[in-house]
């Protein structure tokens, strides 16, 4: 063998060995941060899993309130966001509702799928676990949020159904929450479950059942979706859009007529003598119902139960009792009583009172929608009544095609 051949062979061996060494590298990847799905299936992960249900519900509600308010006349568009502009005009475009539909569905799915996971992990201890009634409760409110705002039910990639499906599921979940919370002596959760169930029973036409539940909710009771300044995700986004920014305004709504109304407060900011305007030229009347990024939003409350009972009475033709209940609700805010002797006047009072009491809580669109269907309110004339199936769901769910 010549020196040249020997050199060549040696070099080739070294090169091939080096190449193999290089390509034999470990391709494992380190990934601190995200959590693998299987790591949630442990007893110790349950509290955080249920906290996540609460967080997803708050996120869905908090980010929707602003747009829901634009779509139901609670606020006026003052900025230049294109989807928000459509909401304000009463045009609920499937592309625009992607975020809200997704957030609401995620809130529903994390609660319902989380309950399945909890059953598997906790086994016989499932019912007695302190987190279980909370999970049912969040599942109930997530379903109610969907039922009150979207037109069509879609569950876990399944076919389209009636919006009442959400209310039916919510009623079932609230019932389980009430039962288990009662067994655990968790009065707060049990009462919240009653308040939630009262509302969905009403929306399902079971006004008797609704009144029965509502009677068990103290007037002073309040159960909130939690917001916080702890992280941006926990913020009350409506405050961000109205106080931090100037994307929406009370200007131009029925609530702009009286800034002394304690349930629908707002103020203005002036530059010199001129009221500050938003990016699209709308005068900024800032809502002040929620003043901080941590301001909670009510999911159910005793005063709402008074109005629910009032509506039940009105539907039964009992104007007197309806007005008594309405004024009982007003009394809690130190407001003078209203007087109405006719059914029509009572309905006007009731619709106004619900609008004020539940202002910026993501509930108005449903009230307007059901009253429009019954012919007692015309605000939604020429406007979309509820959120359609989102473009993302429509495009990706083969059961909808």
């Amino acid at each position, binding site marked *: 063998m010549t020196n040249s051949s020997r050199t060549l062979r040696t070099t080739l061996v070294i090169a091939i060995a080096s190449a193999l060494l*290089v390509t034999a590298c470990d391709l494992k990847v380190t990934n601190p941060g995200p959590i*693998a*799905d299987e790591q949630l299936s442990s007893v110790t992960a349950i509290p955080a899993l249920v906290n996540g249900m609460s967080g997803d519900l708050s996120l869905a509600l908090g980010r929707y309130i602003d747009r829901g308010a634009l779509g139901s006349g609670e606020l006026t568009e003052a900025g*230049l966001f294109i*989807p928000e502009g459509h909401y304000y005009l009463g045009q609920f475009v499937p592309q625009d509702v992607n975020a809200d539909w997704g957030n609401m*569905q995620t809130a529903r799915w994390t609660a319902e799928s989380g309950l399945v996971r909890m059953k598997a992990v906790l086994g016989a201890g499932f019912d007695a676990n302190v987190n279980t009634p909370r999970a049912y409760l969040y599942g109930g409110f997530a379903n109610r949020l969907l039922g009150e705002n979207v037109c069509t039910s879609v569950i*876990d*990639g399944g076919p389209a159904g009636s919006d009442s499906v959400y209310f039916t599921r919510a009623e079932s979940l609230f019932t389980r929450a009430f039962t288990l919370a009662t067994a655990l002596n968790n009065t707060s959760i049990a009462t919240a479950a009653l308040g939630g169930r009262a509302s969905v029973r009403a929306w399902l036409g079971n006004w008797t059942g609704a009144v029965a539940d509502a009677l068990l909710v103290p007037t002073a009771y309040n159960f909130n979706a939690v917001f916080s300044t702890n992280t941006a995700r926990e913020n009350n986004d409506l405050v961000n859009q109205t106080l931090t920014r100037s994307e929406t305004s009370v200007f131009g709504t029925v609530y702009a007529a009286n800034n002394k109304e304690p349930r629908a407060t707002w103020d203005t900011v002036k530059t010199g003598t001129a009221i500050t305007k938003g990016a699209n030229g709308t005068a900024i009347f800032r809502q002040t119902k929620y003043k901080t990024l941590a301001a909670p939003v009510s999911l159910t409350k005793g005063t709402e139960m008074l109005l629910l009972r009032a509506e039940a009475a009105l539907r039964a033709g009992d104007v007197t009792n309806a007005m008594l209940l309405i004024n009982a609700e007003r009394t809690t805010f130190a407001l003078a009583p209203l007087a109405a002797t006719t059914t029509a006047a009572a309905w006007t009072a009731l619709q106004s009172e619900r609008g004020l009491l539940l202002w910026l809580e993501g509930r108005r669109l449903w009230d307007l929608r059901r009253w429009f269907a019954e012919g007692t309110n015309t605000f939604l004339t020429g406007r979309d009544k509820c959120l359609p199936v989102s473009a993302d769901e429509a495009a*990706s769910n083969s059961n909808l095609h």
Partner: protein
Amino acid sequence: MFSRSRWLAVACFLVYGAAPQAWAQDVSGRARDSVAKAQAAYASTRAPQYLPLETVRSGTVRMPEQLARRVSVKLDAVPLQRVLMEIATQAGLGLSYGEDLVRAAPTVSVDIAGRSAADALASAVAGTRWMVLVTATGQVTVNRADVLMVGVINGRVTDRATSQPIEGVQITVDGTRLGAETSSDGRYTIGGVTAGAQHVTVRRLGYDVQTQIVMVSDGATQTLNFALGRAAVALSQVVVTATGEERTREVGNSLTVVDLSNENAPIANTQELLTGRVPGVTVLGNSGQAGSGGTIRLRGVNSISQGNSPIIYVDGVRMSGAHTPTSVGGRQDVSPLNDIDMTDVDHVEVVKGPAATTLYGTEASGGVIQIFTKHGKKGSAQGILDASTGFNNMGHIGVASDTTGMFVNKCSGVLSIGDGTKFQDATCPASGSWLSNGQISRYSLGVRGSNDSDDYYLSGNLNDEHSVLQTGNNRTAGVRGNISVHATPTLTLSLNSTFVKRDVRWYPDGLSSNAFLLNVSRGPGTFFKGSGCSDPTVVCILNDSIFTINNTTNTNHFITGGTATYTPIPKLSVRMSAGYDYDVADITDITPFGHLRVPLGSIAETQWNRTLITLDLAATLRHSLGRAFESTTSFGGQTFDSRLNQTDLSSSNFSAPGVPTLTSGSLRNIVGQNEQRVINAGYFAQEMIGWRDILFVTGGFRVDGNSAFGTGFGLQTYPKVSASYVISDEKFWPSRFIETLKLRAAVGESGKAPGAFDAVRTWDPVAAENGQSAFEPSQVGNPSLGPERTREVEGGFDASMFNGKMSLSYSYYTTRTNGALVPVTLPPSLGFAARQLENVGILRNNGSEIAVNVDVLKRRSAELSAGVQFTMVRSEAGDVGGQTITVDANSLSFVQQGYAAPSYFGDRVTNPTALADPVVEHNAFLGATFPTSIITPRVTLRLLNRVSFDAIGEFQRGGHLLNSIGFANEGLFTWQPCFDTQAKLRLAAAGNTSALADVTALDRARCSIDSKVKSAGFWVERADFFKLRSLSMTYSLPDRVLGSSNGSSVTLSARNLFKNTPYTGTDPESADQLVSSFARRDYYVFPAPRTFLVSIHTGF
């Protein structure tokens, strides 16, 4: 050292046929003529010049007649001089030797019959310490073999057409480390050249490679001049590919080399260099912010989700191309590509398309940019100084009819908007304008040198550029050290390192409530209102508050790469490289305590660092297959380890003034943290068969593994095939008009890997219930995920015509990306809202690239050359999973089957020119985002070899841009082009039925005063433009001016001096980068200024 003076008188001198005889040699190809000339010059010199006998016997030069004569000698154990005498006598050679041979009197034995005198002489000295030297006339002398005989080569290199000297030509003595580089007068000197026939090769980008053989004699200086022809198509030019060095004639795909020594005007950064100089490259500036990175695309869009930026190699070592995170307030980012100082760069190679980048592996489908920095220069140490000073200047902003320039050019006095609202800015500068000239300073000092065993290049640079506003500047300071050491005759080690510190202060820009243009152009609609105006009846604004906000991006970027090149035998080369790229950035946005909008202040900080560790190995073996075939076999491997760490923090509500930190605020937030590590490893093999150095066929493949691939994919294989045919080298080729023509074709694949964790189902840890631990669904995961694969077919040619006066290159390509990674929406009702990447899409691209350069005039006193490059790109999304992909809804940017990716979709006025109310089509296609054709003309005029003028222009057509400034300001009645229409709309609203008689439907839509009619879609505009990118004049100073012999020059230059565009926003290249770098939206982005510079370059 050999010295003729040491020799005694001739012991024996016999002459037979002593007439001078020229050496002639057996060299092939085009070098034959030059060698013959050199040989004739050698033979004509008076003093006899000796060559080693072995040089003559090897056939490199023709053997003198006497040495070929047959001799017979049989002598046993006699002194060497006795044998030599016998041979010389029989052959008729002249023989001389020194006294040292007489004193040594070595004894030898010779038994030769009927062999040549040359063989007999070789036999006589074999095994002794003596060697035989001969002259062209057949004289023979004897010298000690261990005494080195060296000579000197010097000469001058000139341009063949103009006879002007050429600076910077590399001259090397083949097979040695000896070499030199020409100075400004074209001269060079190489000492210590071993006596004998030496091949000397000269190389310079833009010229033919030329080789001559020179006979070097001991102690003598041999002059060797070169006259180089400009190489319109330089087929001998060496380029660097994934496998190592290849000659251009061997490369089957298009490849563009940008030589910075041809550029007179100072170039600020890589993106500026690529603008208008490389066909197939799209560069969009994005912003006028000093320090901002642009958008670079090679051959369009090949990926929807994985980015389209090319990968970058610096001196053969890969560096990360990841931009820093975008400044929240400044809305721009910093490109690492711009951290390579242009004064350090020697040349840049741009490799476009997967057919060319296959062997670079996964992630290479966006193309490859290879940057080669300067290295040691043969000869003594040489200093290089570059200094520039100048300024940025904005000129008029917006449409010409707007005399206030969107209230930027003019901000003084009481101003009014379309609805009559009057306002005054109490903080308007005394000049009456927000604009001023922004100072620019650039300094670079380098030194380069070389000795026998190593070479070096060391440099440092300082750059300082200010914007045309009160804040906004980009400061960099960098050092570079390139060192090469020839450790052994077969091993070369090189280490190239650079460190750059960059401090950018952004002015608030783009989609931000604090942004300069957003507030100023809105007039009384600014967020900064207050008191202090001289007219109390108008809206008083205080836009000066904008500049109290401090948005900064500070980076420290260190890149180092070591390469070992082992060449144990000439036909085998092994190269191993290791690289380390560490880029760390701190992006901070501070709103100070007491700020007009946020009185308690806030701070947001992103701490980011990116590390890329690479290891490359490539081996190439060249060997003959007999006859006319040659094989080049290459193989190697590569691994890179990419790490990304990012932490986002914020704090607000400071308790007092002062310089805040993250702990200054009462509200503190860890916004996010991201730590990712991706590892890629692969190997490649390539075989190239060459035939007669005319036809080259190459086949190869790359196999990659990547930690981001799903579990079911394993290794990915990307194949390639290419061919190059230098048809003009065929004998049948009629080279009268087209002297060089290379045909080429290539097909190959490359890919892009998905994100690091796209294959895995994950949940994100979050806080809920007021700070308690919680989870939220994050990533659905797809275990079948793999890279998207782009296949490209490319064909074209490179031609040189009319004796090199014209060059023409043409390429056509078509690409198809299969399994494009598309963010597919799963049914949101399944819980996971985030989109999941799936390999479902198809993207198509095709285009043509043409480059023409013509030497219009070439005289000694004047040279005029002109060129034009044409790029056409057609992009189309095929099946993208049956859905419309939203890139950014607010930018109206979507990817939809059958349209360019991405495109604008939205409301369109179908009767734009009709004098009627607008008819609106919803969800209509409004135009492609990126340009479809780019034309870049260039003209260079050189006079008296002293003064040169250079101009580069650029046309871009086919792109569109959402003018969100017009859309937003129209509604605020601050968009001047709408003032007239809006006045008529008001009259019409008041009942004047004829008010709109001359108003088109499009104007009625765009300028609507009814919020129900307004739509952003009406503001998607053509982004066509022509810009005079660069205009410069350079004067080459005579050496006596600065006492420099290495060339000095003074340059006056301007950039973006002229712009013409139908786009009504501020600049058709503007785009806010925070929301998306794929979608483009001009949302109050302050445009790029004009730049004027005076520069001096000198070597010393």
